[in-house]
């Protein structure tokens, strides 16, 4: 079964290509996917097929599939009608129709999702397919997205059914937790009982009722008629709206005995049937009439399945089959009328019956089934339904029966109105229509004949459906499907319905206009408007549009939250040290002075130099603390930062712009000091609160035995916490990409990220002069020392495992070497030094690092696990190779790439833009 779902998925992927290649005929090919499903299902009549694949075992989500009788019935309908409607679509759309490829893809994807839904045995899997059908339905309703009505209807259908779907999911979770399993066949075998179950039932029914357009959710279905008619025939008559009914039918035998189940379904079902049936009588648009008829019939199905007895279940299954056949036929007929005559308005159509006798015959066959004439399937199902409630043993059965009889009378009346409206002669009008191609007409023909055939074969079919009905608790005499039961009560009711329906049609002009007590559509509109208003108010209140405002709010929350804890329950330590070595105080004074002066500085460059000074101060603190790696990196980063900032600042005005008003400045200073005080307090308390032995206590030993290195910090980076480093270099790649995309303004300009060769006029010699205006001496000197610096950076990289250094420090040194080349000779020198795309270096680094991790995994270890190789090589001596060095090489490359990218964008490209701007 999973394979069949996969076939649909594959077909959906290739469908657009097929349509481009074969034109609209490709739909025949696409129809093969549901056709294969149909053949597969028909070959397994009366079997129960199960499949199971593990998916997310921890959450109880597995790919459990099961096809019992009810699933089989739905699968046959979904696949069979899906294939026929696809074949019908070939003629429905004109050749070269815009978006036909998309239509074919989404349609077949929907068929696959629908098939998955009806054979899913896991509640979560069912939910996934359920929502997939919702999404595909959205796409199909908005098949022509340029029309506002389509977009609106699609959104409405999406929102209403998704809301129900979410409620259903919550219901599933309650049900599954109570049962201890999410596999439906297990829940069915061992149903849970308990107080929460009523809530689960109500939530699940919310999903089912909204999907099947039952009152009060019925409004979305008529709007969804904005879809192309084949879509309406399939989704909104035969398949998707049946999902809700299917769910009711599936869960009914098990949950039907729970209190809210029966009354809720009977009441909403009968009410929907009557309201929609009445509304259908008043429609002038044939398609809308069918849509309201569908809502009415869905109400009937819901009520019948809601009866929750064996005979009602059997009647429901029979009606389900009958409705799918006759309603899709009628929709397809309306589609043909619409395309050939250009109208669906019954006041415009006249004389079509004489001109298109074949079409009229098909419609009459389907209409006879809808009205419940023997020996059609519609008659068989309706008889069974009447019998189930006539001989029922529960309270309210007779009231439901009365509702069904009145509803069926309405059905007969609007059926007659439909046939009359579409085909009868009307005074003073004639509709012209071209002849209909037989390969178009054949598809509704097949469906109409099928409705007659299954009715005639009601007995053997009933034998199959009995297996579903017997899941309900037995009660009274078992009913069996047949066209002729003798002169019984239900037969009398059927005759009554036909006569009354005919009379109602005859007196149709004298019917009073009855409105719905309230319109679900209006409620939907009001809720949507309310949501929009709420969103505006909420956004207006919180999104003030000012960055300092947002930051201020966040920081105030920090001060209030952490400050409150500091004043209140924080464990203040008893003792403190003034310093570890008195040198720290000297450095600290320097940092403090530089930081305060940076805040007060008015010139950009002064401020940046002061910030850099405080950064160097922090590097000295690192040395004093016993962190040489940090100090090395901090020195290098501060230097790189200053260079970078200077590169940009040379283009910006020397002074900061005028400060704003004094009060806001005082507010900023107050907030800053408050944050500073809270941060200091937090440091004091947090450090004092440390009591346990740090996890890093065993790191030195681990570093040597597992990491194969003496420099503990480096081993932590490339081995013990290598995942952190992996995340970090990814951030660096993203940052570098962001810088490049901000500076290079067009995609084509990104080519310059590779570097631009020097100016024309012959390549400069190795120690030759650069372009005029730059210091030759400086260029020559940097060229001489460049290789030494790069060599040093490689030394840092390789020695980093056992001494201060490593990929970060090495990469930064190499980056600074490039920086020096750039500063001395501009972009030509930079390109000469590194004639390579910065993006390539970044990507290569990331690949090397990730590849190291993956290789370790492929070799059978954990991701990023380190292997240590010790070998004695002749001449060279002992080789001690630790595989994490490759990870560090990746880090090195990423850092070099970042620096190169910065030089190319913030340096060379800004130069170029300034030159271009004059």
């Amino acid at each position, binding site marked *: 079964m999973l394979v069949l779902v996969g076939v649909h998925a594959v077909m959906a992927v290739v469908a657009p290509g097929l349509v481009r290649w074969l034109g609209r005929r490709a739909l025949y090919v696409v129809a093969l996917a549901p056709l294969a499903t149909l053949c597969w299902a028909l070959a397994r009549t009366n079997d129960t097929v199960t499949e199971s694949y593990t998916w997310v075992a921890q959450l109880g989500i597995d790919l459990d599939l099961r096809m019992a009788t009810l699933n089989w019935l739905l699968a046959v309908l979904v696949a069979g009608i899906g294939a026929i409607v696809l074949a019908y679509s070939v003629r429905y759309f004109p050749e070269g129709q815009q978006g036909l490829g998309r239509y074919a893809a989404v349609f077949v994807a929907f068929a696959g999702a629908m098939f998955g839904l009806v054979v899913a045995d896991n509640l979560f899997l069912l939910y996934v397919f359920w929502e997939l059908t919702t999404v595909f339905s959205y796409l199909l309703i908005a098949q*022509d997205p*340029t029309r*506002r009505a389509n977009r609106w209807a699609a959104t409405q259908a999406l929102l209403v059914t998704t809301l129900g779907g979410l409620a259903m999911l919550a219901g599933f979770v309650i049900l599954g937790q109570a049962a201890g399993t999410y596999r439906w066949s297990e829940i069915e075998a061992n149903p849970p009982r308990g107080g929460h179950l009523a809530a689960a039932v109500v939530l699940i029914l919310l999903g089912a009722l909204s999907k099947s357009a039952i009152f009060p959710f019925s409004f979305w279905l008529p709007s969804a008629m904005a879809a192309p008619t084949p879509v309406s025939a399939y989704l909104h008559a035969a398949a998707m709206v049946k999902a809700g009914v299917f769910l009711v039918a599936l869960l009914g035998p098990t949950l039907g005995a729970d209190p809210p189940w029966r009354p809720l379904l009977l009441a909403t079902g009968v009410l929907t049937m009557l309201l929609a049936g009445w509304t259908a009588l008043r429609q002038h648009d044939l398609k809308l009439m069918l849509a309201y008829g569908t809502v009415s019939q869905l109400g009937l199905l819901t009520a019948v399945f809601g009866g929750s007895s064996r005979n009602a279940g059997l009647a429901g299954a029979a009606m389900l089959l009958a409705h799918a056949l006759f309603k899709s036929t009628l929709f397809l007929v309306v589609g043909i009328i619409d395309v050939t005559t250009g109208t669906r308005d019954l006041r415009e159509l006249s004389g079509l019956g004489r001109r298109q006798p074949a079409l009229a015959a098909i419609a009459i066959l389907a209409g006879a089934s809808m009205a419940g004439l023997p020996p059609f399937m519609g008659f068989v199902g309706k008889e069974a339904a009447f019998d189930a409630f006539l001989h029922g043993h529960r309270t309210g059965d007779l009231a439901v029966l009365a509702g069904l009889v009145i509803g069926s009378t309405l059905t007969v009346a609007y059926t007659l109105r439909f046939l009359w409206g579409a085909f009868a002669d009307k005074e003073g009008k004639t509709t012209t229509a071209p002849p209909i191609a037989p390969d178009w007409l054949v598809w509704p023909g097949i469906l109409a004949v099928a409705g007659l055939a299954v009715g005639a074969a009601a007995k053997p079919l009933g034998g199959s459906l009995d297996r579903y009905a017997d899941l309900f608790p037995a009660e009274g005499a078992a009913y069996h499907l047949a066209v002729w039961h003798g002169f019984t009560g239900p037969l009398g009711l059927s005759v009554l319905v036909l006569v009354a329906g005919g009379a109602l049609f005859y007196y149709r002009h004298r019917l009073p206009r009855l409105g719905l007590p309230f319109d679900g559509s209006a409620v939907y509109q009001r809720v949507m*408007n309310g949501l*929009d208003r709420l969103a505006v108010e909420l956004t*207006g209140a919180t*999104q*003030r*549009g000012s960055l300092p405002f947002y930051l*201020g709010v966040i920081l105030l929350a920090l001060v209030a939250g952490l400050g409150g804890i500091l004043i209140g329950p924080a464990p203040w*330590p008893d*003792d*403190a*040290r003034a*310093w*570890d070595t008195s040198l*720290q105080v000297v450095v*600290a004074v320097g940092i403090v002075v530089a930081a305060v002066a*940076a*805040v007060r500085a008015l010139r950009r460059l002064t*401020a*940046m130099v002061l*910030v850099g000074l*405080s950064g160097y101060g922090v590097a000295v*603190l690192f040395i004093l*603390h*016993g*962190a040489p790696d*940090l100090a090395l*990196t901090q020195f290098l980063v501060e230097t*790189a*930062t200053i260079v*970078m900032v200077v590169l*940009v600042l040379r283009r*910006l005005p020397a002074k*900061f712009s005028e400060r704003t008003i004094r009060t806001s400045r005082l507010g*900023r200073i107050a907030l*800053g000091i408050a944050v*500073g*005080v809270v*941060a200091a307090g937090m*440091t004091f308390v947090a*450090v*004092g609160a*440390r009591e346990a032995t*740090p996890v*890093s206590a065993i*790191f*030195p030993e681990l570093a040597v035995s597992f990491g194969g290195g*003496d420099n*503990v910090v480096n081993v*932590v*980076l490339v081995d013990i916490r290598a995942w*952190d480093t992996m995340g970090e270099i990814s*951030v660096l790649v993203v*940052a*570098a990409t*962001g810088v490049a995309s901000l500076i290079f303004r067009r995609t084509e300009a990104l080519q310059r990220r590779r570097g631009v060769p020097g100016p024309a006029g012959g390549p400069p010699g190795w120690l030759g002069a650069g372009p005029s205006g730059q210091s030759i001496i400086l260029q020559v000197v940097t060229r001489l020392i460049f290789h030494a610096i790069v060599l040093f950076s490689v030394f840092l990289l390789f020695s980093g495992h056992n001494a201060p250094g490593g990929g970060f420090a090495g990469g930064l040194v190499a980056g600074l070497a490039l920086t020096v080349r750039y500063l001395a000779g501009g972009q030509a020198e930079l390109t000469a030094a590194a004639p390579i795309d910065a993006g390539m270096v970044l990507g290569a680094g990331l690949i090397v690092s990730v590849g190291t991790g993956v290789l370790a995994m492929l070799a059978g270890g954990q991701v990023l696990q380190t292997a240590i190789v010790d070998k004695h090589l002749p001449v060279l001596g002992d080789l001690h190779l630790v595989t994490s060095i490759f990870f560090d090489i990746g880090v090195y490359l990423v850092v070099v790439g*970042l620096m190169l990218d910065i030089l190319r964008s913030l340096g060379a490209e*800004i130069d170029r833009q300034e030159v271009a701007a004059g």
Partner: protein
Amino acid sequence: MSPNLTYVVVVGVLFAAGVILLLERTLTRVLMGVVLLANGVNVLILAGGRYGGPPIVGTTPDDEMSDPLPQAMILTAIVITLGLTAFLLALAYRSWRLVGQDEVQDDIEDRRIIELAERDEGPEVEDVDDEGTS
């Protein structure tokens, strides 16, 4: 562990200076604020680890080493700050190229929504219906 007051003071000053600059509207000032804040955070993390000799096996006895874990975290943070600085610089430059200054302006769209909220109106949906054939 007893806290080192020198670190506490340095953290406080760096945070205060960083926040004051961060709340400015000039992007270059914001950038410097971020750098100062980052340094402050690094010192904060450093303060949480033990003081001692370089954590390199063989040069320092295990029980006299400074705590290596906070150092690894800080090292990561330093390099990320470099990437962030570059990005902010690019933003500042881009802003200057586009509007002639590197100040953060208020978001015009947000302003419009605030005005809508004050007039008690819903969002104006610009839903153009380019009526196609159907």
